[in-house]
């Protein structure tokens, strides 16, 4: 089961259907996650993101990038370009998900050639952060099984507590997730990640700020903590636009090599 960055960006955007009289209490886990997913992945998006990496010691490191995404059903194309720090300015990633196929390419500044991120590397840390390369992809509908564990308040907000398990553990990054989904905004407020092998809790993601951006409830500030070493990555959504026009030529190896 892989969580995408969009989970944190679009963050389970608001479902305005509630205002139309839908009784949220009667929703099943699949219905809740469908709504989270439907609002999490707008057809097109452009987001400027800042990552702040904090270890137990030393100065925090900052990384900034812009992410462009185009989604159509279970297919998606994601292009990422780093702007900061200077040493990695121009590092680019391209993720293409089409049907069952999924390819991740990288162009690092120190290397003139394009590198392919193998499937086994997708659980590696993304540029030293607590997110992973697998988080760059969108979550495919039907990859996971959701189970409603009940309703529970999280920091005063009524939430659905949902357990998510991958249908194929072999392809998954984690053995399971526990998600606290805001009952009103359909944003995932808190997530626990469980290790694939030992099935222990290894990471947690806490959404600290949610804003309404272009009619979409979006997590704009979240903190991922690796429980194994205490390292934290704060993800700040600096700017976001949904429904922007993105040409298909952006999501090509040509652009990955030559830049936008």
């Amino acid at each position: 089961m892989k969580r995408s960055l969009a989970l944190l960006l679009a963050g389970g955007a608001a479902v305005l259907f509630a205002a139309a009289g839908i009784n949220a209490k009667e929703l099943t886990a699949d219905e809740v996650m469908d709504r989270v997913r439907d609002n999490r992945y707008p057809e097109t998006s452009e987001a400027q993101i800042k990552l702040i990496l904090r270890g137990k010691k030393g100065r925090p490191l900052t990384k900034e990038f812009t992410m462009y995404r185009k989604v159509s059903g279970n297919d998606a194309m994601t292009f990422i370009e780093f702007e900061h720090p200077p040493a990695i300015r121009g590092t680019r990633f391209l993720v293409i998900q089409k049907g069952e196929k999924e390819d991740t390419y990288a162009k690092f500044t120190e290397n003139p050639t394009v590198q392919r991120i193998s499937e086994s590397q997708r659980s590696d840390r993304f540029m030293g952060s607590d997110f992973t390369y697998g988080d760059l992809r969108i979550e495919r509908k039907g990859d996971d099984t959701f189970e409603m564990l009940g309703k529970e308040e999280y920091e005063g907000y009524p939430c659905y507590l949902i357990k998510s398990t991958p249908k194929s553990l072999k392809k998954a990054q984690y053995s399971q997730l526990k998600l606290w989904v805001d009952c009103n905004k359909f944003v995932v407020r808190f997530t626990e990640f469980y290790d694939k092998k030992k099935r222990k809790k290894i990471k947690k993601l806490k959404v600290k700020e949610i804003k309404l951006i272009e009619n979409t409830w979006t997590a704009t500030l979240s903190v991922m903590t690796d429980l194994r070493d205490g390292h934290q990555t704060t993800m700040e959504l600096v700017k976001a636009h949904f429904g922007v026009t993105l040409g298909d030529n952006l999501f090509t190896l040509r652009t990955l090599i030559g830049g936008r």
Partner: protein
Amino acid sequence: MNSSRIISLRNLCIIAFFAIFLCSPAAAQEKKEPSRWDWFMKAYQRGGGALQLHYAYDMEDDGPEAGDTEGYSRKEDLWETRLKLYAWAEFKPWRKAKIHLSAITFEYIAGRDPDESVVLESVYRLPNEAYLMQSIGRFDFTVGYQKQKWGVNQFLSPTNNLNPSELRGFIDPDPEDIVIPIPMVKGVFFITDFIFIEGIYIPLFYKSQFHIFHTDFALCREEAICQVNPEEYVPDEDIPESEQWEAGARIRAEIGDFTLEANYLHTREDFPVFILPKDSEGNVVEDPHITRTYPTYDIMGGGIGWRYKKVALKVEAAYSPKRQYTVAGGWHTPIGGEDRTLPLLLAGDSPSYTWALEAEYAPSRQLYLLLSYEEIRLTDAPDPDDPDEPQLLLSSEITRLALLLGKIDIFRERLVFKLGAVYFIDDDDYILTPRIAFKAGDHIELSVGANVLQGERADTNKLGGVAPVSLYSDADQVFAGFRYNF
């Protein structure tokens, strides 16, 4: 080859670089009206650079003293300081166009011996890349100084023959120093997103360049000596610069887990060779002199790479009906100094082939291992021990080297450990280049490292068995560096 024209072109790029950066804003202020500065600010996309201070100690050994063989030898027991300013910028002047400018705007090198007397001092300004790229439909057209990598292999690539190597970069690799950009016209046609055809034309071809007295190299403790028949050469024949060129084409495809490439390169160049003709008994028959060799040759090659999970295998090969190989050599033109030619060359006029195998193991982004092996062979080469056979080559073969490159990122990529280990199989020589780099912040990087060179200097990179030219010797170096990226 007279490199003055090239140098003037290169300086022109630097001047243009500074003109855009410095002159335009000043002009805009004076005019107080919309000007190129507005255009510049609108077109400017991004930029950056680095200021680097490198301090090294060249350890004393039992080799020759500094200064012998006219500066070709490595200096020992020497403190060396290098200060470098590198800058780059990208512009989007109009739709689907990009201008990239980068330059080592300033590089100062100085060496001091134990008596604190300055024995080396030089200042360089070197353009890096300066090109304009225009996209039209599926076609990309690029013109200017460029770096261009061919082949599928990462490190030892027999078909990656376009850019001269920045030979200092071999053991002192700053990202901007690895290869030297050259003037090039390039067209790329994308058949699909993952298959393209590329054609290149290099009007002013020139070989590798490096700082002749850079102390990272133990160069030529003895003169390059080869057993030759001088009549077979055309001494002092200068090929006009305008007649030296390279042109080539390649097709490359990324298909699933495979990368495929086929390429062809035609070169006409004026390549100098420093020779000391000897007769069959080893007696010097002429004074050492520079001559020319094999100005025209073709190289055809290709490679295939395959990645499966954590492992990647790549094979690359090249064949040339007549070819010369450069081990290390070319022009050195310090600003304000005189031109020199470095004599390290492996050459031949017989068919030759090169192949290289690389294996990568990357269990994670934190660990990267690369093992590489390369063979260079000239077929039908004359027997270097046969005095009756014209010796038109300096060496017929190099079982080039095996390479192990390790990179370990720990503490979330704050601390990076790299180890380069190059082993010359034929000569039983090796070079170790351990490096530790620490990111002290978003901008600051500290590094320490060493270059450990071991080998029989009379045999390393031997030329024809009778030409002892040593690239590596017992000349070790330790260094510390500070780099501020902006």
